[in-house]
């Protein structure tokens, strides 16, 4: 199906439209710069609809402009009484039938795309990855089904393969949205699990947002999808499975940090393993793109976070002041040493600003 709009794109209107719109927004976030199957399909659908809308708008505005210019009351005409027309059957038929036709033109690709994106035919097939996505206030958990491994905030996927997502929530409704790869889907609490799929065309770090109001830090519930080549992805899985949660860090500060971490934090955070705790899984913490989904991964920020998570993300579930500033410093040293894989590191974290 890829590029079934391709032939239309060469048409002038579409070409111009595509040009204008693709100038909008940053590379790894804008829905107008698709980097995956779903997003591309949807951009095509948007283009068809925009074209229809522009067509309609031009007609309306043409009549509008004509009427306003031609039929204004002029000085001295205040007493003129225009002809009181009742209506015009054939005109009325025209402006009933033409919109119906235009809407049918829009409805057909709409229904096609809707069914296309709901397709689950290959889920569960040999070699097809399914990731269990859980939305939490205000972080994301990704459990790679059958792989015995899990990540939080950063979702790794292989490029040019369909990856299915089984989505649910542990608390309130969230919505999983990576604009450059696919449309969004809600994560519901309870039995109502949803499934969608992603397919990235290029390697890259794609920005994701939570799109359903879920509390004070709804706007800070960002995450990323990191698409790497299938070989690298296998490598990454390998790296992750080989993590030894008990391994001794190198520096003494980090060793003390590990001790402190195990005493204070393990009730909620896991290192290694795939089960979901109260807090994010921190196995590959040093590989994280951001702290808690949004903050620059500097040590300073990390220490601030560990001591005052409530100030950085209002309403989040992690208690403040569990440890002192000095202790946090050591824990940060430890966490920043949890560097287990080279995969994905060469990808630009943030696309350059607007072209």
């Amino acid at each position, binding site marked *: 199906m890829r590029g079934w709009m391709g032939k239309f794109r060469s048409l002038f209107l579409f070409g111009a439209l595509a040009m204008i719109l693709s100038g909008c927004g*940053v590379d790894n*976030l804008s*829905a107008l710069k698709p980097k995956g199957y779903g997003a591309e399909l949807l951009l095509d659908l948007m283009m068809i609809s*925009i074209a229809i809308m522009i067509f309609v708008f031009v007609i309306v505005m043409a009549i509008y402009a004509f009427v*306003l210019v031609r039929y204004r009351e002029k000085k001295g005409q205040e007493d003129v*009484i225009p002809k009181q027309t009742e209506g*015009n059957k054939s005109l009325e038929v025209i402006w009933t039938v033409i919109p119906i036709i235009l809407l049918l033109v829009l409805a057909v690709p709409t229904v096609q795309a809707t069914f296309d994106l709901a397709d689950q035919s290959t889920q569960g097939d040999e070699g097809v990855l399914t990731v269990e996505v859980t939305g939490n206030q205000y972080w994301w958990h990704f459990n790679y089904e059958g792989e015995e491994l899990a990540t939080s905030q950063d979702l790794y996927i292989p490029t040019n393969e369909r990856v299915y997502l089984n989505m649910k929530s542990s608390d309130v409704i969230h919505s999983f949205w990576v604009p450059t790869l696919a449309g969004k889907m809600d994560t519901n609490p309870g*039995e109502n699990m949803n499934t969608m799929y992603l397919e990235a065309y290029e390697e890259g770090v794609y920005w994701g947002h939570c799109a359903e109001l879920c*509390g004070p830090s709804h706007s800070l519930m960002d995450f990323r999808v990191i698409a790497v080549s299938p070989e690298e992805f296998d490598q990454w899985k390998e790296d992750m499975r080989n993590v030894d949660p008990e391994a001794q860090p190198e520096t003494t500060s980090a060793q003390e940090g590990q001790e402190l971490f195990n005493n204070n934090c393990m009730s909620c955070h896991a290192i290694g393993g795939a089960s979901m705790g109260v807090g994010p899984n921190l196995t590959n913490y040093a590989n994280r793109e951001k702290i808690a989904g949004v903050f620059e991964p500097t040590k300073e920020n990390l220490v601030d976070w560990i001591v005052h998570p409530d100030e950085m993300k209002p309403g989040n579930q992690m208690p403040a002041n569990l440890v002192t500033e000095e202790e946090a410093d050591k824990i940060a040293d430890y966490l920043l040493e949890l560097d287990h894989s080279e995969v994905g590191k060469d990808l630009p974290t943030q696309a350059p600003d607007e072209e």
Partner: protein
Amino acid sequence: MSTAVAQKRGLGAAIWDYLTTVDHKKIAHLYLVSGGLFFLIGGLEAMIIRIQLMKPDNDFISAGLYNEMITMHGTTMIFLAAMPLIFALMNAVVPLQIGARDVAFPFLNSLGFWLFLFGGIMLNVSWFTGGAPDAGWTNYAPLSTTSPGHGVDYYVMGLQISGAGTLIGGINFLVTIVNMRAPGMTYMRMPLFTWSTFVTSTLILFAFPALTVGLFLMMFDRMFGSAFFDVALGGNVIIWEHLFWIFGHPEVYILILPLFGAFSDIFSNFSKKRLFGYSAMVFATVLIGFLGFMVWAHHMFTVGMGPIANSIFAVATMAIAVPTGIKIFNWLFTMWGGQIRMTAAMLWSIAFIPSFTIGGMTGVMLAAAAADFQYHDTYFVVGHFHYVIVGGVVFGLFAALHYWWPKMFGKVLNEKLGKWAFWPFFIGFHLTFFIQHFLGLMGMPRRYWVFLEGQGLETGNLISTIGAFFMAIGTVIFLINVVYTSVKGEKAAADPWGVGRTLEWAIPSPPPHYNFVQTPLVRGLDPLWVEKMDGKEGMTPAEPLGDIHMPNASILPFMMSLGLFIAGFGFIYQVDNSAWLIAVFVGMGITLGSMLTRSLKDDLGHHIHKEELEADIKKGVAK
């Protein structure tokens, strides 16, 4: 009462008069003032939202407060500003347009208003008692059921009370239109504003009960421990979404249809032409109302209903573009060949056409279910609905207020100031909301307290904020106009525009409280115009001059609503301390006691005698 009150009217008497009034024209004033105040509050909240989003990572207000701000902005604007302002117009105009002396249920009409007002006050009290509701105006469970504090409880009780008022108002208009039309005013001779009031009231009748039930379930979950939305006990949160939108989508047509009606009247008046395709317009109105009930799930495309349901709702939604298009083209052709007079009312109406068309077209884009996976819950949607709501409903309210102001208050709003208010508002409107479509597509979800730096969203948001300030300027100029007119404005004639076509322009501005001395005989569509074209001065009466029967004023509607208001607080706080149950009993006691009083004490109304009417005619206050 007509004589007693007229003689000595101190401030106290005037207030008492308004507290007890059952006159639809005074109730219109009440709706206008309170709806207007709520519009300013909602607008102020919008300004705070825009200031917060002026630059990235802003901390003008806190995250929690931001959520309260958007929730209250949406709720206030829709339930407490737009709907009451629409009710103000309906009350002021519909009985006059059908040649009635009164509405069908004057007492209930007043009850409807007081319920709305107390519900609205209740909602806004939450600001001062530890936090407003913060789960969005859509109040999705379980965010709402688990929201700490009492904010959401205020949402539930406030909307329940004001919703009851709306339902009562709706039934009142339905019966008024069916039963109280003057002789000769057949259905197919009713002005479009009356028609759209009729359809709107039907929508209210069928849509609000779903919200009522939703709010009850929410109340039971939050206050009495039931498990409708508690997944741990087998509840299902999607039930709320469906109930809310079964109500919520018809609600948006409840907002726009009356203004469609007002535009129809205005376009036809100021083009000096009868409405083009009258019967198609009526049919389109009914059809929009009808289709409005079959599309609610287009707000839920991403919930996971599956491709079949999504496709059905997508196509059904698109269908609404057809009757709406019929309307747009009929308006254009009403002006075609006419003599367009650019009054302030007309200016707002003219501006409405392109603005609403854009909003409608983005609506159809949203209706493409799959594409909505990208648009949903982004600023694209915010752009869409402000285009239809501000560009349709708010423009419509301004147009209609300019148009009917003389009929409501006896003075013509200053035309020059009217136009000065228009331009900044119009420009600001497009500045604010056009760019939001792009913000959405560029990856900005809605209900975001902050957006981050370096995502290409800075410029757009800044422009949007600047636009909001322009709208504020426009609003303030309008307020100045209101004050200026009430001080300096000239008294309006019965037909101040000189081109009146419908019955309300046949009687003095403002009309006497019994409206028509003699019920008029209607001889065609646009009855006043028909008489004018026959060279007559005014309407031919359908009955001889005689005594008029009018209802009595009553304080009971106020008391009933006050009782529910008190009981509402009791319900909210009995969770903390059962002593608050006393408030429930006291409040319900007041309400039920007032109801009992109403049913035990006969109220047969009073008569205005022929002599008084003749005196009024001599004085020129009746005709």
